[in-house]
Every structure is written in C-alpha cells, then in structure tokens.
C-alpha cells in the first residue's frame, strides 16, 4: 500500500514538473517571439508611444527704435481648435461651436466656414487663432468636448499706430506683409527647430533632447526715434484734419547719415488690427509721386549755380508776373519787379526761375536732376518704393525744361525731395536714406558728392532767406537757423487733363542749418481745403510745430538773443 502511494505521489510530481516545463516552454517561446522575432516592431511601437518629435517655433525678432524702445514683439497666445478625439458627433461639434461663438466673437461667416468643415468630417478645425488671455481662460473653463488649445506666437505693436507704415504688419502665420516686417521677414522669422521628448506611462516628460536647435529671428534696430515719430504723426494728423486734406506725409532725417528719424503717412492704420485697407496701407512717403512744384527750384538753382548759368548778383525781370508758354500762362502769385537770383528763390518766383532754368543746356539740367537722385528709387529699406518720373531730354517737348524748372512735368516722391534737400544740408554730398541700423552697413554708406560744396553753401544761405523773409516765414523758429523751400503745386484735373488752380499740393522741405545740420524734414499735404492752400501757409507751420518739439527733445538750445552789450566800469570792490 505504501509503495503504491509513493509511486502515485511520484507520478503526480512528474506531472506537475511536466506541466511546469510546458508552461515554462510556452513562456520562453512567447518571450522568444516578443524579444527576438518581433523585437524591432514592438520596440518601434514603444518608442512611438513614448516619444514625441516636436517642432520648436523660432521666436520672431523684436523691432526696436533707435533708443531701444519696443515697436514690435511676438508673444505666445492660445489658439482654439476642434478635434473630435472622442468621436463627437457633428451635432455635438456644432453645439460646441455655438457655445464658443460669443466668447470668441465669431462672425456669421466664420461660423459658416467651421460648420462646413464639420460637415466634411475634418479631424482638425481652427475655431479662432491667437485669442487674448481672458478669452483663453473662458474657453478653458468651459471644458467643452473636442475643444483644445495650442500655443502660437502673436505679433504685438505696443505703440499702436506709431510708425505703422515703417513697421508694416504680419499675417496670421507671422509672415511680414509690409514695411520692415516684409523686407526683413527672413531675418526676423529665424528657423524652426526640432526636439525629442520621451514620456513615461503617465505621459510625463522625463527626457528632452534638442535634435535641431531653433534659430531665433534677428532683432532689428530702426533709425526711427519713437518720440520724433510721435511728434510727426500728431502734427500731420492735426494738419490733415484742420485743412480737410486728403492725405499727407512727413519724413524727418539726419542729413549727414541719411538715417530716417520719423516717417509718417496719413491715412494710417493700427497693425494690431486686421489687415488695413489698401488706402490706409499705402506708404505715401515713398509710393506716391507728385509734381514737386517750387521745392524743385532747389535743384534748378543748384544746377544753374554749378554750371555758371547764373551768378549771385544776376537780376531777373519778374515785373510782368507772367510768362507765356505755348499758349499757357505761368503766373507768379504777384508781380515782383526786378529780383536778384536769391530773391527769385526766396520769393519762389516762377517767372524768374523759368528764366534761370532755361539758361541751362538740356543735358546740364537733366544731369542735375539725375545727380540729385530723381527718377530712381532712393533704396530705403521699405517695400513699394517707386522711381518717380524724370524723362530724358530726348523725350521733352519744347517747353518741358521751362516747366520742369519750376517743378512741373516731373514726378517725385517725398523721400526723393528730402534726399535732395539733404544734399544742400550736407555741403553737396548725397547720402542715401536708411531706416534700419545695420552694423554691416555703416552710417553714410553709399554717400557721393553731387554738388560742389561752395555751391551748396551758397544755396543754404539763400534757403535761409526763404524762411527769414521769403515764402517760408511760417517755418521760422526764433533762435534757430532754419533753411527751407516752400512748394505749392496745382493738381492735375483728371477730367480736363490740365492743371487746376482750385486744388493744390502744399509742401515744405527744410532743415535746421547748424553744423552739421541737426535734422531735415519734408511735409507734404495733399489737397488742403479752405482759404490756405499754399505750402508756406499749410506745410510750413507743420514743419515748425514738429521742429520745435524735436529741438526740445534733442535738447538743442536756441542761439542766445542778440542784445546790445553794455559795458559798465565798476569801481574797485565791486560785487559779483
């Protein structure tokens, strides 16, 4: 009996051992299958589940003014999207969108677009991109099914409308669409990077490895001075309103370096808002051409002096106050009598300046026009600059030189006129304008002499007389030497195809004539209404208003008043 039980027990043990062996073999087989045969596949799956390759967005460069004040910067904000992760039905998705419509201020069109995409069963639908923090918090608190948020950069322009035409703006994908945002888009944008994130079973990141480092966009430093830009915009907007004008522009620069301190164009826009209208977006300082009128007499006078066609003492008969030109009559605003060359300029006599201009050979006149940079872009770092129009002498009609002498029949931009005025302020050296400070391009790069210095100095004296007792007295600032030239251009009546005396373009271009010139400025006001339509009455006061504020801002004191000097003999022991 005992032997039987022992045998039975041994059989049981063997069976158990066999079962364990089979179990172990099955396990080993499964392990062999998982670890050896299908190792690569399962490893790939694990890696797939636990790691993310994420793109690292490159931060768009910040734009500063010349004093380091922020003009444009990108900051992270939230964007809301719908992704039916839990297979939400289209009805649920529509209800969710309806719940968000109020918080996100969705327009009817936006909702219709989203609902069309829901009907198409899209797996990823943007609801609203780049929302503000309050809206993001409100969306988050609703915990709506299928609604998620993603961080994206948004461009902020903390100064609002300030320098909008210089800065431009970006689209929803942060691509520069105008201004320096557009011209320097590649530099500002930088390059996106990639990173590897390893996560544990609870999706917590425990390892972050940068595969490709993001290259942040380059910061830009502009030549613009925030304060001067503000003065220019304020004064321009005020003048446009006061004169019910259609548009205007102001540019302020340092003549010696060509650096633009302010560039204002009106109408303007707020780059923080949606894309502006084409009318507001147009940068009229560089992209609108006009007949310059009398400001162009600076070029005629310079060419005449340089080529010896006139001398300072020459006199011109302007007593009739009118010149007949092939059936048309060019008038002065009043008969002046006999004027010296300097008086012709300072009183802006058309009759006198036509006599001056027509003393020049055609080639001499045209060479001067080209030397001053007309008919070609100045090359300022802004998009949309136009050439203007300066036809060669071969295309001129009989009286074109006479008309061009007084600034008609030639089209220029405001920045070209300022560049020409800067030649006079710089003793004959043309310095191309610039708006971005760039170490690779030192200030004054590309400068070239286009006028003998003595001629430029002679013209400076004459231009000071314009402000002291000529047509530009409204630009006078006591204690400061101002040189400049007024311009009043009759506008072309598109219907009649002729100039009309009812509508004008008023301008004033000048500079503070210190050594070196402290700054230069051009003011252009188009189509002012009311009694005052002359450059001297509309644009020159704007020049004065802005210049006064700039002089204070730059802490440039007035020259001491010239008072009689009293000499007093003091007795010994006189006090202090």
């Amino acid at each position, binding site marked *: 009996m005992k032997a039987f039980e022992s045998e039975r027990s041994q059989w049981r043990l063997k069976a158990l051992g066999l079962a364990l062996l089979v179990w172990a073999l099955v396990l080993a087989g499964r392990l062999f299958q998982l670890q050896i045969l299908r190792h690569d596949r399962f490893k790939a799956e694990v890696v797939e589940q636990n790691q993310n390759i994420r793109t690292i967005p490159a931060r768009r460069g910040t734009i500063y003014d*010349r*004093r*380091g*004040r*922020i003009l444009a*910067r990108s*900051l*992270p904000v939230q964007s809301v999207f719908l992704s039916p992760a839990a297979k939400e039905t289209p009805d649920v998705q529509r209800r969710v969108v309806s719940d968000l419509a109020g918080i996100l201020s969705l327009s009817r069109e936006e909702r219709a677009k989203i609902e069309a995409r829901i009907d198409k069963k899209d797996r990823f639908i943007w609801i609203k991109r780049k929302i503000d923090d309050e809206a993001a918090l409100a969306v988050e608190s609703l915990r709506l099914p299928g609604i998620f948020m993603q961080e994206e950069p948004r461009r*902020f322009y*903390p*100064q*609002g409308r*300030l320098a909008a035409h210089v800065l431009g703006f970006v689209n929803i994908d942060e691509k520069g669409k105008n201004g320096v945002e557009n011209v320097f888009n590649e530099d500002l944008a930088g390059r996106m990077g990639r990173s590897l994130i390893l996560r544990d079973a609870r999706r*917590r*990141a*425990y*390892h*972050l490895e940068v595969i490709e480092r993001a290259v942040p966009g380059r910061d830009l430093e502009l030549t613009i*001075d*925030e*304060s001067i830009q*503000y003065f220019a915009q*304020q004064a321009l907007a005020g003048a446009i309103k006061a004169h019910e004008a259609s548009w205007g522009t102001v540019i302020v620069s*340092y003549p010696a370096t060509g650096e633009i301190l302010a560039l204002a164009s009106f109408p303007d826009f707020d780059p923080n808002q949606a894309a502006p209208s084409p009318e507001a977006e147009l940068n009229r300082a560089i992209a609108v051409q006009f007949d310059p009128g009398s400001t162009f007499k600076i070029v005629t006078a310079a060419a005449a002096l340089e080529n010896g066609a006139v001398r300072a003492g020459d006199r011109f008969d302007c007593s009739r106050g009118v010149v007949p030109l092939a059936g048309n009559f060019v008038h002065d605003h009043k008969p002046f009598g006999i004027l010296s060359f300097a008086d012709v300029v300072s009183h802006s006599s058309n009759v006198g300046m036509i006599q001056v201009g027509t003393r020049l050979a055609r080639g001499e006149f045209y060479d001067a026009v080209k030397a001053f940079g007309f008919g070609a872009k100045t090359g300022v770092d802004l998009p949309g600059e136009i050439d203007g129009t300066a036809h060669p002498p071969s295309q001129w009609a009989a009286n074109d030189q006479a008309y061009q002498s007084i600034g008609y029949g030639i089209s220029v931009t405001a920045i070209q006129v300022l560049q020409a005025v800067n030649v006079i302020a710089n003793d004959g050296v043309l310095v191309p304008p610039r708006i971005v400070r760039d170490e690779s391009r030192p200030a004054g790069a590309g400068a070239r002499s286009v006028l003998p210095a003595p001629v430029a100095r002679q013209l400076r004296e004459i231009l000071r007389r314009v402000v002291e007792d000529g047509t530009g007295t409204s630009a006078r600032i*006591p*204690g400061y030497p101002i040189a400049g030239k007024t311009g009043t251009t009759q506008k072309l009546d598109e219907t009649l195809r002729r100039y009309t005396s009812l509508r004008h373009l008023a301008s004033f271009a000048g500079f503070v004539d*210190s050594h*070196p010139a*402290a*700054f230069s400025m051009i003011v252009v006001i188009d189509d002012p209404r009311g009694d005052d339509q002359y450059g001297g009455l509309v644009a020159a006061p704007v020049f004065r208003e802005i210049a*006064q504020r700039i002089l*204070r801002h*730059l*802490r*440039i*004191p*007035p020259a001491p008043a010239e008072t009689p000097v009293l000499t007093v003999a003091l007795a010994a022991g006189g006090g202090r």
Partner: protein
Amino acid sequence: MRGRLGRKDILLLGAVAVCAVAILTFYLWQQTESIRLGYETGILEKQRADLVEEIKTLETRRAALLALDRVERTARSELGLVEAREDQIIYHDFVFGGEGR
C-alpha cells in the same frame, strides 16, 4: 574526495555577491536618480521659459502703457499739464544733435 568550501572561499563568494548586489543597487539608484533629475530639469526648464516669456510680456505691456499718445492724453486730460513755453525751458548739459544710446 568531495571538495568542501573553505571559510575563505565562502567569504570571497559572499563578498562577490555583496559587490554584485551593490553594483546593481547603485546602477538602479543611478538610473532612478537620472530619471528624477530628468523630470526636475524638465520642470525647471519650463519654469525658466515661462519666466522669460513673462518678462517679455511685461516689457511689452510696459511699452504699451508708456505709449506716447497714452501718456500725453493722460498728462493733458487727467493731470491738466500743458506744453512748456520756450521761455520756461532751461537747457543744460546738452549735446548738440545729441541722441541716446
């Protein structure tokens, strides 16, 4: 003759075993520590990035608050300030054509 482990051998084997356990323990500790530091670094990196962002946001908000039109509006309408007359301005320590930076 059956070989018997001597006291010395037993001690040696014990030491090897202890060393192996110690090495394994150290390895496990080092792995755990490395992962813990990974978490910590991740958190700190995020905190740093968040703080950098916050600084930039604050700088931008400051720029918006100091926007010149806002300052002028406040100065004129709320504080009643007016433009100084030329004779009220005293220039000192000036730089001709001077500018910042």
